[in-house]
C-alpha cells in the first residue's frame, strides 16, 4: 500500500487531483514597534499543494509557519494575495477572478478547540441543522434525518439531539464539530490541530473517526499538526512547512524514513518516542530571534537554524527538487539518515 502511495507522491500523481493549490501567497502588514514603519510579513510564500480524492495530507510545521493561514485562505476566512486554488471542477480563486464565497467552496474545517467552536446556547440538533437550513435545499424532515444520520456517523446516539455542548466531553464535542463539518457534504475537510487538545486516551478515537470518514465517504482531508507521530499514523502524504514555504513533501513513510530537508529531519528527531532512551541530542541554542522574512528574499527560509547552511543558502532560494518519491527545497539534502552528502 505504501509503495503505491510513494509512487503518486507529490507531483507524481497520475490521476487528476481533487485539490490543486498553485503559488498561493499571502502577506500580513504590521509594525514591529510603535514608531517603526509597517513591514510586510509573508505568511505564505508560493505554496503549492495537490490532493486526491480520499487522500489525507498532513501539513506539519511549528507555530507561525503559515499552516493555519493556508487553511484560512482555502476556506475563505482570509484572502490570498496571489495564486490559484481549484477543487475538482470548481475554481475557488485565481488572479483577476472573483473568489467563490466560502459556503460554495465545498471545504469545511474543524478546529483545535471544540469548546470554543460550538454555540453554548444551541442544542445539538440546531447546531448540526444550521448549515443545511441556510442552504434551504432540504425540507425540515429531511434535515432532521440528515442530522440523525451524521450523528450516528460520528458515533453519537440520538439521545444527544436535545443536549447542549456543555453536556459533552471534549472528545464528544470534537465529534459534534466533525458532524457539523461533514453534514454539508464537503469534498475537502481541513482539520487544524483537531486532536491536539484532547486527552491522550481520546485522541486515537478522533483519528480513527477521520480514517472512517475517509474510507466511507471518500473525503479528502488536510490534517494540520505539529505532531509527527499523529501525522505518521493518519496521513498518506506529508507536506512540511517552514516560515511560509513548503520545504519538503512526499509519501508519509518516505518522508519519515528518509527526510531530505534538514528541518524535516529535525522535526522527526524531536518527536518523543517510546522505546528510545536518552539519546544524545544536538546541543544547540536553536532559537534565534528571526525577523519577518523580507518578500522575495533570495535565500533559504531555514538558513538561520540550519547546521548544513553554506554560502549559496544565503544568496539563493533553493528550488524544489524531486527524488525517490519526495520533493524538497534544499541545496544540501540528506542522502539517507545518518549518511549526509558532503557539504558543497
Amino acid at each position, binding site marked *: 500500500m505504501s509503495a503505491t502511495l510513494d509512487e503518486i507522491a507529490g507531483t507524481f500523481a497520475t490521476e487528476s487531483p481533487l485539490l490543486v493549490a498553485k503559488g498561493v501567497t499571502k502577506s500580513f502588514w504590521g509594525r514591529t514597534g510603535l514608531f517603526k514603519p509597517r513591514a510586510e510579513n509573508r505568511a505564505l510564500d508560493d505554496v503549492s499543494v495537490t490532493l486526491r480524492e480520499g487522500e489525507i495530507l498532513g501539513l506539519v510545521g*511549528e*507555530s507561525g509557519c503559515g499552516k493555519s493561514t493556508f487553511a484560512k485562505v482555502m476556506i475563505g476566512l482570509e484572502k490570498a494575495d496571489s495564486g490559484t486554488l481549484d477543487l475538482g471542477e470548481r475554481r475557488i480563486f485565481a488572479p483577476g477572478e472573483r473568489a467563490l464565497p466560502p459556503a460554495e467552496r465545498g471545504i469545511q474545517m474543524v478546529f483545535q478547540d471544540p469548546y470554543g467552536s460550538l454555540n453554548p446556547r444551541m442544542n445539538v440538533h440546531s447546531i448540526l441543522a444550521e448549515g443545511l437550513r441556510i442552504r434551504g435545499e432540504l425540507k425540515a424532515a429531511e434535515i432532521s434525518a440528515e442530522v440523525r444520520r451524521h450523528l450516528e456517523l460520528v458515533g453519537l446516539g440520538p439521545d444527544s439531539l436535545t443536549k447542549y455542548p456543555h453536556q459533552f466531553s471534549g472528545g464528544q464535542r470534537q465529534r459534534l464539530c466533525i458532524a457539523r463539518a461533514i453534514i454539508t457534504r464537503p469534498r475537502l475537510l481541513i482539520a487544524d490541530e483537531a486532536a491536539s487538545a484532547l486527552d491522550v*486516551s481520546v485522541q*486515537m478515537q478522533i483519528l480513527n473517526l477521520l480514517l472512517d470518514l475517509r474510507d466511507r465517504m471518500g473525503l479528502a482531508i488536510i490534517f494540520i499538526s505539529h505532531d509527527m507521530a499523529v501525522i505518521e499514523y493518519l496521513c498518506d502524504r506529508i507536506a512540511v512547512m517552514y516560515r511560509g514555504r513548503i520545504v519538503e513533501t512526499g509519501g508519509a513513510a518516505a518522508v519519515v524514513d528518509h527526510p531530505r530537508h534538514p528541518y524535516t529531519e529535525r522535526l522527526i528527531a524531536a518527536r*518523543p518516542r517510546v522505546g528510545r532512551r536518552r539519546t544524545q*541530542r544536538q*546541543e544547540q541554542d*536553536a532559537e534565534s530571534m528571526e525577523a519577518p522574512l523580507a518578500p522575495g528574499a533570495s535565500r533559504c527560509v531555514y538558513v538561520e537554524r540550519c547546521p548544513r547552511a553554506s554560502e549559496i543558502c544565503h544568496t539563493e532560494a533553493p528550488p524544489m527538487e524531486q527524488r525517490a518519491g519526495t520533493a524538497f527545497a534544499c541545496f544540501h539534502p540528506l542522502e539517507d539518515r545518518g549518511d549526509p552528502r558532503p557539504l558543497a
Partner: protein
Amino acid sequence: MTAPLLSIDRLAIHVRQEGGARLKIVEDISFDIMPGQFFALIGESGSGKSMIARAIMRLMPDEVLDIEGSIRFGGHDLAHAGESILRPLRGSQFSMIFQEPMSSLDPLMTIERQLSEAVEAHGKRRGVAMRKHILDLLARVRFRNPEQILRSYPHELSGGMRQRVMIASALVNEPKLLIADEPTTALDVTIQAQVLDIIASLARDYGLSVLFISHDLSLVYENADEIAVLYGGVLMEQGAARAVIERPAHPYTSALLACVPRRRRDGARQEGIEGTVPSVSDWRPGCRFAARCAYRQPQCTEGDIAFRMLEDRRVRCVAPLLEGMPA
C-alpha cells in the same frame, strides 16, 4: 540507602464543589522522590496531577477545603505547615515552573531585574556575585548570549526562551526540588525536546530532583527515572521508568501506551481507549478505570483496591497484567 528528599504519605485533597458539596479529588497518594531523581507524574485531564503539585507548593486554589496525609520535606510537613515556615522554603528549597511562561513573567521588567528580585528575596547573594551567578544559570539553560538576555524584556523572547528563563528563575536560589507542571506543552516540538533535555540534564549533572508532570507518557520515557501513573485522583502504577513502560502491570498504563500513535502497517488501526475520562462526580466505588477497562472483572467495582507491591513496582489492580504487553 539514601533518605528521600520528598515523601508523600496518604495524601488526600478535598474541594468544595459548586453548590457546596464536598468532593475528594485526590486520595491515597503516597510516593517518595529521591535526591537527583527525575520523577514523572503522568495523568490525563482531571486526574489531579496539578493539584498534587500545588499541594507540595501549598499554592492551593480557593476551593480546596483541606489536605489529609503528609508531605515530608527537610523535617517539615508541607501539608500542614504554616505560611511562616513555607515562605522561606518556596524558591530556596523547592520551586515550580508552569505551562505558560509568559504569565509568570512581568512584562514591564527586564529579565535581569526579575531574576535579581528572586535572588534578593532570599538574600543569599548581591552585587557582582549575584550577577555572575545569574549569568552562569542562563548559560546552564543554554543561552548563547546571557548578557543579551539580561537586557531583554519578556515579549522580545520566544516561548522556548521564556520557558528557559523561567527554569533559570526557578533555580536561582538553588532549590533541591523543581516541580515542572507541563512545562513543554505550549512549546513547538523541536523546542519541547530542548527544554526537556535541559531539565533532565539539570537532574543528571547537578543533583536536582525533578517532579515532572505531564499527560504524555511517551514524552517522559527518554528522561524519567521513575514514573507514577495517575487516573481519577489515585495512583494506578508506579515504578522504574523502564519497567513501567516496557512491562506495564496496570491495564490503564498499557492502554495509554497503546494510544501513542505509530505508523499503520497495512492499514491496521490502533484501538485507543473506549469512553472518556470520568469527571469527579461520576467516580464509582472500586477501580476508577473499570468502566473503560478491557480486563474488567466483577470484583473491580466492589470496593477500594489497595496500592500494593508487585515484583518491582506498585500497582492498584485486582488482576494486573503479569505478562506485560510489548512496548
